[in-house]
């Protein structure tokens, strides 16, 4: 089993590479690194003009949509370069999740929660649909996501971003420690 476990790039390689997105975009054409506005752009393209929130020039935001197209291609490219393996999480996490009924640790996401068969069962309803909805609603209300607030905002020492990141962790900790035990058992 040991040889199946992944060897991810260490944090001190991945972190700085992600951090360099900030100056790269600022210096190239004065863009602040962010991802979740593409959710708004999509709605603005699909249903323009109906709501004030979607009334703006998406053309100005094209760069960001090319960026996320790249992220999608990057995910594909990396999946071709490296075989999917068991993510090398700590033994303690494996034990905690096993106690909640998560037993398949192969791949990047647990197949018990994210699969087509379970889609309209409780798991799909909560983890796929409700989770996705909360991401979209929450990031637009908070005015940014982990990229725009946690990486770019904190790099600029933005108080709004610090507040949002505190919120991210309150929500994530509450869900992990109080909701998951109820949802999974």
């Amino acid at each position, binding site marked *: 089993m040991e040889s199946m476990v992944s060897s991810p790039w260490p944090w001190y390689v991945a972190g700085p590479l992600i951090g360099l997105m900030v100056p790269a975009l600022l210096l190239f054409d004065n863009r602040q690194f962010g991802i979740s506005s593409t959710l708004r752009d999509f709605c603005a393209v699909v249903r323009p003009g109906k709501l004030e929130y979607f009334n703006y020039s998406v053309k100005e935001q094209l760069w960001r949509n090319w960026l996320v197209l790249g992220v999608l291609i990057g995910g594909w490219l990396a999946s071709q370069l490296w075989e999917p393996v068991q993510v090398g999480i700590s033994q303690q996490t494996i034990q905690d999740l096993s106690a909640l009924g998560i037993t398949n640790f192969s791949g990047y*996401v647990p197949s018990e929660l994210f699969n087509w068969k379970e889609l309209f069962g409780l798991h799909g309803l909560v983890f796929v649909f409700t989770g996705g909805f909360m991401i979209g609603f929450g990031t637009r209300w908070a005015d940014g996501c982990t990229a725009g607030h946690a990486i770019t905002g904190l790099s600029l020492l933005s108080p709004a971003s610090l507040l949002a990141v505190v919120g991210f962790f309150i929500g994530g900790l509450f869900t992990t420690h109080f909701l998951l035990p109820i949802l999974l058992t």
Partner: protein
Amino acid sequence: MRYVFHLVLGILFGVVLLKSEVLSWFRIQEMFRFQSFHMYGIIGSAVATGALSVLIIKKFGITTLSGQPVDVTTKPVRWKANLFGGILFGMGWALTGACPAPIYALIGSGAYVFVLVLISAYVGTYVYALVKKKLPHG
């Protein structure tokens, strides 16, 4: 043509998200359970790198390629929106194990169920716009 730059940068970002396992639901669980330094190291060193870059840009008055002053404006503080929206986002992050960039990278990697997570996020965005005026912001 200049969008080739953004596309390439996105590809690099996507590769990093997969190869550092930031896009993994398991890694996000490990983070929210404080059982590994991995995710904290990534976020921490990313912010440190970004902040140091901004500091250097400001200190030496470095301009953009076209010679403009660099945009270092920050988003306005609207504490209720930042906090309550942030909490909701954090809950979605823990449930799906993905924030927006990893959703795109996961779809690319072949986890096609995440197309439905993305569509749900579009719906969430649309509903936010519908009820925006009724929500507390400032």
